[in-house]
């Protein structure tokens, strides 16, 4: 109870800071605390912005241990590890600046990481320059090459069907569950790389509003499972999935977002609804030994 109130409080606080950010800070790029040792001008400006907007969560040392951190789940990112969830680059590589800036614009869906849309582009670039000073890795390694995303294939019932088979074959359901509700047989055992419990994404939850931590478009969805969500159990599938197959999987995943109006859901409905996919589900479930607790897969609630 206490915990929840604290979180609400911090969200309010943050919302307030983010709001006033626009007013106070539009285009401002100087007038911050005097330069620290060896920082570039962008890093200096970023430092000032960081102390104002980020330090309460991410901490003075960038290790994710700010004053608010104990009350937050998930915990704020530890920038000293230089491990990031939202990347266009392969698993284990550093993200591009544009990936980090994208995260700042979006915020992180369903977490306490707010959107920093009210800041200016320059502010966000400066912040990214500054958070990169927390890890040596940015000096010794280059970001990976962004994975290539070919043009989207047409949405069709065949594509959705193939995507459903892939969901079985790649065993996404072991974590995400057959209905994508985040309740697969391994779900309750998962921890992130800091040993904090973590839930797989629940596709069916209307509150998610069809958004993901790392975007909301079909392209983003494609990128997410190809690059993986580093620092979490969610692995990369880039080495084991062909580009067109990946689009089929995207189309199927959209039908798990049952509350969302989408081309995918229309096509599936016209073809007879989720029940038409069931036959292959049972088949693959038998030979891949599904949830041992004998869950029924009857659509429902």
């Amino acid at each position, binding site marked *: 109870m206490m915990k929840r109130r604290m979180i609400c409080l911090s969200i309010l606080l943050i919302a307030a800071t983010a709001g006033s950010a626009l007013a106070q800070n539009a285009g401002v790029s100087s007038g911050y605390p005097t330069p620290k040792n060896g920082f570039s001008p962008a890093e200096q400006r970023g430092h000032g912005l960081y102390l104002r907007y980020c330090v309460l969560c991410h901490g003075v040392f960038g290790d994710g241990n700010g004053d608010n951190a104990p009350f937050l789940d998930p915990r704020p990112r530890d920038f000293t590890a230089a491990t990031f969830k939202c990347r266009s680059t392969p698993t284990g590589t550093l993200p591009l600046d544009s990936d980090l800036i994208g995260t700042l614009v979006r915020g992180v869906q369903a977490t306490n990481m707010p959107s920093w849309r009210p800041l200016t582009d320059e502010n966000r670039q400066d912040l990214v320059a500054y958070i990169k000073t927390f890890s040596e890795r940015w000096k010794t390694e280059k970001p990976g090459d962004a994975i290539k995303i070919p043009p989207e294939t047409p949405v069709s019932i065949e594509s959705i069907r193939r995507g459903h088979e892939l969901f079985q074959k790649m065993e996404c359901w*072991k974590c995400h569950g057959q209905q994508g509700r985040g309740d697969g047989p391994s779900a309750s055992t998962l921890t992130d790389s800091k040993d904090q419990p973590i839930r797989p994404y629940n596709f069916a939850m209307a509150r998610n509003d069809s958004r993901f931590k790392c975007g909301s478009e079909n392209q983003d969805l494609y990128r997410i499972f190809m690059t993986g969500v580093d620092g979490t159990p969610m692995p990369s599938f880039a*080495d084991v999935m062909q580009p067109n197959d990946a689009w089929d999987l995207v189309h199927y995943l959209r039908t798990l977002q049952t509350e969302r109006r989408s081309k995918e859901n229309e096509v599936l409905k016209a073809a007879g609804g989720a029940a038409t996919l069931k036959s292959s589900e049972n088949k693959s479930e038998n030979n891949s030994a599904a949830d041992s607790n004998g869950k029924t897969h009857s659509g429902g609630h």
Partner: protein
Amino acid sequence: MRTKQMLVALLTLLVCPCLLFAGTVSGKVSYTGTPAKPKPIDMSKEPSCAKQHATPITTETVVAGANNALANVVVYISAGAPDEGQVPQQAVTFEQKGCQYIPHVLVMHTGQELKVLNSDQTSHNIHPLAKTNREWNKSQPPGTPPISEKYDKEEFITVKCNVHPWMRGYFAVLKTSHYDVSKDDGGFKLPNLPPGKYTITAWHEDYGTQTSDVTITGNETKDVTFTFKAKAY
């Protein structure tokens, strides 16, 4: 005449001192106290793996043998190794079989190719929780080709499969190929050591590290023992 003889002797020494004086460090790793009992692993959620084990396998955190022997300890030269930077050409292999990692502790040189194989009928995600090196996490469904990777920096890395929470293994990334992993009898052997001063380190996943200094002067075998204190649980 004399200079010529000396030159020849010197040259032989330079070319292969290892052949003239190849010292060996060998010994045993053991424990004192009472180690935690291995726990049986319940694989019923993954029948394709469970059926590969006639009797359920147990956790490998502490593998103890007769006479207090401690297995799975990485013993290596942490200072003075003559081969730092010589990356072996052949790859090391880490296999996922019966929802277990084989070997439980895999040693490799920095920069050496690491091949990860899935011999199971189920998907694994291979997730080495590196901190100094890059942390990656890849899915490997049955029948897909081996994953090829390498690590640039020395580190002991815990390896997990998030789908099968009982799976746990270790990568030991070293700057030398002078290493051994203690066997069931606790034994280890580091051969082919030219004369010199060495620091030998023994690393155990649960009991930590110990070091010992050794000087090799010629063609000799030095005995070194390591004794870890079992953690009380």
